[in-house]
């Protein structure tokens, strides 16, 4: 009975319902290989950023600057490319740049003791502003096809988009880090009771700093993916994406107050939001309905996990 009431179980059931109704209502077009490929492309960046953000939120913090780091990274890729740098150098440099952005967030939160919500709302504007300084309102688009084809072709022999393959590899690494290592136990401990964690000898500030650095670095990777997928480096790439990522993480059952949640639930949340959106568009649902449904799902995502939790308490 207990496992039946877990939010993750509910998410998987919801996924099955969406998949089945989708498959029936579109005469098989929804679970078609081509459509699954497109669905994968659409959720690639969200899936990537959701991984480190899950750890950040489990630790009781938040990072709203991730989409701006994505935009800044995209702008940097374009700027360095225009300056004649080779892509093989640009990519690692941009990822390091993302890590630096994350480190700035992390240092402001841990060293100055500022709330991460306030810090990252500030850097959300700051990093986007820097992106505009770097590239202005121009777009850089002359990337070689050998790179941009990662965004338009699947892994040979499958319908798997490259960004999802990358996210899957990172998901395993983040899964191990969060669920099968002492580092992960510390992250939960910090989120559940920061004081207690500190008194148990956990290096709270150091771990939080690492989490922000990871969020920045992965957001930069997502920025690179985004740039090649649309073969377009622009400063305004990914505006507002942070809300989609936070929505997916919360829908995945991670508590906004920290200490609770699983990476599996988050991946199911990403898939559910992306799948539902894809299905509604495929069925020609109007944009207004789409926005309303996404909003309602967000509300459900905040309410439902706590409801299932109290139900579980009641049954034990």
């Amino acid at each position, binding site marked *: 009975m207990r496992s039946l009431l877990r939010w993750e179980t509910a998410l998987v059931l919801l996924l099955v319902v969406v998949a089945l109704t989708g498959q029936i209502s579109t005469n098989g077009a929804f679970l*078609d290989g081509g459509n699954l490929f*497109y669905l994968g492309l659409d959720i690639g960046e969200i899936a990537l950023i959701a991984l480190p953000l899950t750890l950040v939120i489990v630790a009781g913090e938040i990072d709203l600057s991730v989409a701006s780091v994505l935009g800044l990274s995209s702008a940097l890729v374009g700027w360095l490319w*225009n300056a004649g*740098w080779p*892509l093989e150098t640009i990519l690692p440099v941009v990822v390091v740049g993302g890590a630096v952005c994350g480190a700035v967030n992390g240092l402001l939160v841990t060293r100055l003791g500022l709330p991460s919500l306030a810090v990252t709302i500030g850097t959300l504007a700051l990093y986007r502003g820097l992106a505009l300084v770097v590239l202005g309102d121009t777009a850089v688009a002359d990337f070689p096809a050998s790179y941009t084809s990662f965004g338009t072709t699947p892994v040979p022999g499958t319908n798997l988009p490259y960004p999802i393959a990358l996210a899957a590899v990172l998901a395993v690494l983040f899964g191990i880090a969060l669920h099968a290592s002492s580092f992960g136990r510390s992250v939960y401990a910090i989120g559940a009771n920061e004081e207690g964690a500190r008194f148990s000898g956990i290096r709270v500030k150091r771990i939080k700093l690492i989490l922000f650095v990871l969020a920045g670095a992965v957001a930069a990777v997502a920025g690179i993916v985004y740039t090649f997928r649309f073969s377009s480096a622009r400063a305004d790439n990914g505006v507002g994406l942070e809300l989609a990522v936070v929505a997916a993480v919360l829908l995945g059952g991670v508590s906004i107050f920290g200490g609770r949640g699983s990476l599996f639930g988050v991946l199911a949340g990403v898939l559910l939001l992306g799948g539902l959106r894809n299905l509604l568009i495929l069925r020609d649902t109007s944009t207004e309905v789409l926005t309303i449904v996404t909003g309602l799902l967000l509300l459900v995502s905040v309410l439902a996990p706590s409801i299932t939790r109290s139900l579980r308490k009641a049954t034990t």
Partner: protein
Amino acid sequence: MNTRLVLALVVSGAVALTACGGTTKDSSSRQTGGATNAAKADPNAPLKEGLKITFLPKQVNNPYFTVAQKGAEQAGTALKAEVKATGPSDAAASSQVTYINTAAQQKQNALVISANDANAVAPALKSARSQGVKVVTFDSDAAPDARDVFINQARSNDIAAGQVKLISDAVGGSGEIAILSATPNATNQNAWIEVMKTELAKPEYAGLKLVETAYGNDDDQTSFQKTQGLLQAHPNLKGIISPTTVGVAAAARYLSSSEYKGKVQLTGLGTPNQMRKFVQDGTVKSFALWDPSKLGYLATYAAAALASGQITGAEGEKFKAGDLGDYPIGAKGEVVLGPPQVFDAGNIDKFDF
């Protein structure tokens, strides 16, 4: 975890890669060749009925595109085609891609799109075309090798020459005039200003004298103040041309509240809803813009002609666009709607965008 070691490795790796060279802007060969059209056009092919056409504006609930959509739906009814309008609620560079992929997935016959970003939509459009979807861009083009045909709203020359004609008529053929432009480096604005100067050199405009070109940066407040500045600097100014929707509205607002109302003439490129009250109160006699509904109508006919095999998008081909008549395809697959629509007190109430 030794952070310093990792950092050192990454940096040294990056430096090593730089030393070996790699994929740079100069080394990468670019494929800019236009689309190859293997199929041959059959000008006599009948227009197919029951075609499925997706109409994808930059953004839904945008009045300009709602009018264009009405034109597209009108053409759809005439063609017995199923025209479906869809699109994102924001005009971000990449937000149309999902809808392009969906159109390919739904096996639509054609896609009529106004691109938010010429390059960001290109990979998805190419992929859709490879799956048999014909692509027509209108209003804002995508990269030329990513679409079959582009419906251009008006030629630069027609726009600029039309503006000079309107101001000349308004001021009675003689006097000092000024231009209120957008930004000093806006490509289309500068192209128009050049054509205007060439036009003004013609004998029929000998009485007109261009005294200043001011830049309002497409900002309402700046344009408002620049208008004020123009009038103070040139007491004999008779007319202003503002070929930007922001500029013309700001200039009209200034003139209508000043002593110059009705004495200094104004024309430009503006939308009827924005300019209606200034036409009604006599500040502006006439101004111009293209009619978006005709744009949507023509684009839908082009899509049907492509999907029926009448045209392939090659230069020199022709197709019939219902009530609008025959249209030839120009260089780079471009079709021009025609001279801009002029709006004045007599017809402005027929337009709502």
